[in-house]
């Protein structure tokens, strides 16, 4: 499941979203600039340190890394086999990207969506002269995160309903009702946003 905010009382959690995001960006650049193994080692140690400092359940967080690591191993491993890239290089690439994914995961686990979205809003206000509405971008980012589990639920339900009606596996029969449902859901979600006082003409300026 989506590695979203996990509440703990820790210094890492209290760090500003901007600091964390900036740090993540800087760390990524450094790791990618350093020679493979060294970068991976540096990022891995940093990640583990932060993991402990954030008082997060170490086992659970590392378990979230399992799928991406398998994936990375397959990706780069096959390449080593077929294209003759060196094994050392492959190992370095896998660990480097795994460590970067760990850092990214820590960012999302320790930062509230609202804070992250506020950060984006501040960043986007620089683009206001280009016609970008930062408040709208921010709201959409939050909505997207909220909609992911909602959509996963719709997919599950539509699949079950198809099966219950005797259609076991049919991509078209899955996508058509799913899309119809999403578009219909959009009506209610829009009404609900309006009902909760959202004003689309608001340009997000704090007056």
């Amino acid at each position, binding site marked *: 499941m*989506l*590695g979203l905010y996990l509440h703990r009382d820790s210094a890492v959690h209290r760090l500003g979203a901007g600091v964390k*995001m900036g740090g*993540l*960006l800087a760390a*990524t650049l450094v790791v*990618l600039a350093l020679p493979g193994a060294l970068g991976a080692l540096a990022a891995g140690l940093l990640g583990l340190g932060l993991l402990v400092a954030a008082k997060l359940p170490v086992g659970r967080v590392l378990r*979230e890394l399992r*799928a*991406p690591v*398998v*994936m*990375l191993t*397959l*990706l*780069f491993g*096959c*390449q080593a*086999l*077929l294209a003759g890239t060196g094994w050392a290089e492959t190992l370095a*690439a896998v660990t*480097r*990207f795994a460590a*970067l*994914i760990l*850092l*990214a*995961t820590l*960012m*999302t686990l320790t930062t509230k969506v609202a804070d*992250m979205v506020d950060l*984006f809003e501040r960043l986007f206000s620089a683009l206001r002269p280009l016609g970008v509405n930062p408040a*709208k971008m921010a709201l*959409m*980012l939050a*909505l*997207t*995160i909220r*909609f*992911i589990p*909602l*959509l*996963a639920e719709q997919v599950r339900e539509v699949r079950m309903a198809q099966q219950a009606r005797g259609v076991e596996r049919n*991509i*078209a029969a899955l*996508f*058509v009702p799913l*899309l*119809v449902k*999403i*578009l219909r*859901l*959009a*009506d209610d*979600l*829009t009404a609900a*946003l*309006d009902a909760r006082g959202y004003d*689309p*003409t608001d340009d997000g300026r704090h007056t």
Partner: protein
Amino acid sequence: MLSTRDLVLSALFAALVAGLGMAPPIPLGFLPVPITAQSLGVMLAGALLGAKRGGLALLLFVLLVAAGLPLLAGGRGGVGVLMGPSGGFVLAFPVGAFVTGLLAERFATGANPIRLFAVCAIGGILAVYAGGIPWLSVVAGMPLEKAALAVMAFIPGDFIKAGIAAFAAAAVRRAGVLPTAHA
């Protein structure tokens, strides 16, 4: 001006692309770029929402990936991955959706699946590859022609995706629940 409905639709399709990431990615073997279902989302967003909202949907997706959410197939995310060999494709997703949408608004406003297929193929394949190939060539240190040739391995899968997107979009159009492209 984006209406509330536009916001909701873009966010819903961004979430749909994220949801497509739950389908397991297939590694090709000779390239560090997997076959994923997510480019199907690029085509659907463009074809059903149009250029502006579709492009926006994929932009949201890319921003969330950049922010570190593990939304790429196989649970990956973060700037690191975007700077990796497959990053160019992902960064081109918004362009792909925008182009698909633009073409759909011009040439495939009805429920004709063949037109929709063409539109999805141009936006969801050509435009996406145009970003992906040069990036791959630079990051993986491959000559451009070699990268372009290797990427042809995605074509059969991407044609199937364009077919699914065209069929689904046509059916949805017939159901009459589609928001107008320029609301």
